[in-house]
């Protein structure tokens, strides 16, 4: 692992692993859709069980990361008859291409879905060229 601290990505990964060991939860990479419109990239991540306050979204030039904790679904003394939902926290990161205005990123959380709007910089928006005669 990046002991010299130069490799930022390695460092982030090892942070995540340490967190994993401490909490005995599974770190789940939330599934997502990514689409592009004329003026933004939009990322939608399914994160059921997270809450608006539990989500931390970090944006840096060229990089974005999402982390969220999920509360317990059951009291300790409950007798679990069916167990398909894993105890988890969420973590996912994306490398961003050029042409994203990372200072103006917006996010919302509704019905367990995190929507991140990454606006394009003016220079990277598609332009329609009118053909003259």
């Amino acid at each position, binding site marked *: 692992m990046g002991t010299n601290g130069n490799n930022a990505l390695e460092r982030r990964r090892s942070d995540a692993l340490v967190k994993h060991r401490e909490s005995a939860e599974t770190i789940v990479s939330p599934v997502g859709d990514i689409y592009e419109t004329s003026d933004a990239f939009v990322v939608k991540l399914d994160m059921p*069980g997270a809450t608006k306050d539990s989500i931390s979204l970090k944006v840096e030039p060229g990089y974005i990361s999402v982390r969220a904790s999920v509360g317990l679904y059951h009291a300790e003394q409950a007798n679990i008859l069916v167990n398909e939902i894993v105890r988890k926290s969420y973590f996912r990161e994306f490398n961003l291409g050029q042409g994203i205005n990372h200072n103006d990123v917006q996010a919302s959380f509704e019905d367990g879905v995190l929507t991140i709007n990454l606006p394009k910089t003016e220079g990277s928006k598609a332009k329609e060229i009118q053909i003259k005669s």
Partner: protein
Amino acid sequence: MAIVRWNPARELERWPSDFFGIQREINRLFDDFFHGGTQADGDFGVSYWTPAVDIAEHNDEYLVKVELPGVEKEDVRITLESNILTIRGEKKKETEEKGKSFHRTERSYGSFQRSFALPTTVKSDEIDALYKDGVLTIHLPKAEEAKPKQIEVKVK
């Protein structure tokens, strides 16, 4: 007897007598194998997915949790029939697709259905369901006769 390649469409020719049998079989397969997965049926243009479910038993109730991110409350139906709890619904794709080019689609869309037989009877008129942060929580209070009772036996 010759070995013939199985053709699911041929099974459908026996419709309607066999159709529901096949549907049951498909539901069973989905329940068994596709937990949290998705399966698109190209022939019929319908896609299914299987939301993950937890069921916990408490002294006085059953507590059901279903992960349904992105599903609207109005699109979920919960029914209880002869002690079988069924949760069904649909996760709709966003209708506005114009001007969007998708780079990645990992999320599941389409219809879902899960059914569970409850071990004891519940008070069907006191079932309570809440949908919050993509998780559906259903409280099913046990019927009085199903609750555990502590009986003191006097030793003479």
